[in-house]
């Protein structure tokens, strides 16, 4: 497989530490297992799941997805501009990513509060158990993602400690949060 001429040899490298990819692929498998259990269980009681699913607001889910996808775009910008040496621009992108992440966080918590007010809590029924479990464990990953952004900003700030590898490692983590949400969104909000 030969490279197209425009991209240098440098680009053939694994983005970030290869070690982070172990985490990414491992967590992807763990989540796949959660999803498989959920989908299998879903068809056991599809009536209840559909009825409960109707209580969700698809707009929240869609908005969350768009927020995270856009944040991923800015995270990519951040990694690319950092590589090009434009650290100030990269930092701005990192801040925008974090801002979009916070927007997601607020949207998610608002949705939770509305559901709980409506009488749908973690232990209300099986659907909401899965709903709160999956969104909750995903939100935990997002919070860890903020630490990753913090590491990126810390790296970009000091000229002495700039490590492109670490920036890309954290970026890979952030995209994983996005990737998992895309799956969760379609499994909780869209499937019928």
């Amino acid at each position, binding site marked *: 497989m030969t490279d197209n001429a425009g991209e240098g040899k440098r680009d053939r490298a694994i983005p970030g530490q290869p070690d982070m990819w172990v985490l990414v692929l491992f967590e992807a498998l763990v989540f*796949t297992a959660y999803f498989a259990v959920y*989908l299998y*269980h879903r068809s056991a009681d*599809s009536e209840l799941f559909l009825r409960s699913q109707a209580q969700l607001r698809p707009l929240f889910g869609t908005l969350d997805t768009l927020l995270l996808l856009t944040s991923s775009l800015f995270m990519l910008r951040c990694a690319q501009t950092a590589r*090009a040496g434009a650290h100030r621009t990269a930092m701005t992108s990192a801040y925008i990513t974090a801002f979009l992440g916070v927007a997601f966080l607020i949207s998610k918590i608002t949705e939770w509060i509305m559901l709980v007010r409506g009488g749908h809590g973690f232990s209300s029924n099986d659907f909401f158990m899965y709903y709160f479990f999956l969104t909750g464990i995903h939100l935990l990953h997002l919070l860890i993602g903020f630490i990753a952004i913090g590491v990126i900003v810390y790296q970009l700030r000091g000229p002495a400690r700039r490590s492109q590898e670490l920036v890309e490692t954290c970026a890979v983590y952030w995209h994983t949060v996005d990737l998992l949400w*895309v799956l969760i969104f379609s499994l909780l909000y869209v499937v019928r």
Partner: protein
Amino acid sequence: MNTQPNRRPLIILLILSAITLGYLALDRSADSQGTFRASSVVTTIAILLALVKVRFIFREFMQVRNAPALLCRLTDLWVLIIGAALLGSYFSGLAVH
């Protein structure tokens, strides 16, 4: 740096957003007047579209496109594994119940 590599992610984002919005239309086709109806077709399409998005994220956002072939294959394999597990569990659930 020319503008070429910068426009590409934006296009990807637009595609991904379009798929996301497309979900809403997909659901509308299955539901009748606010009552949700079970539909294997919708479920299958939703899972497949999610996998397409996942592959886009791997390839473009996570820059696997430019990574060594091994990582490309590995992430593709993962998309297949996730797809097989999701569809497999869904349909085996349907078959059992």
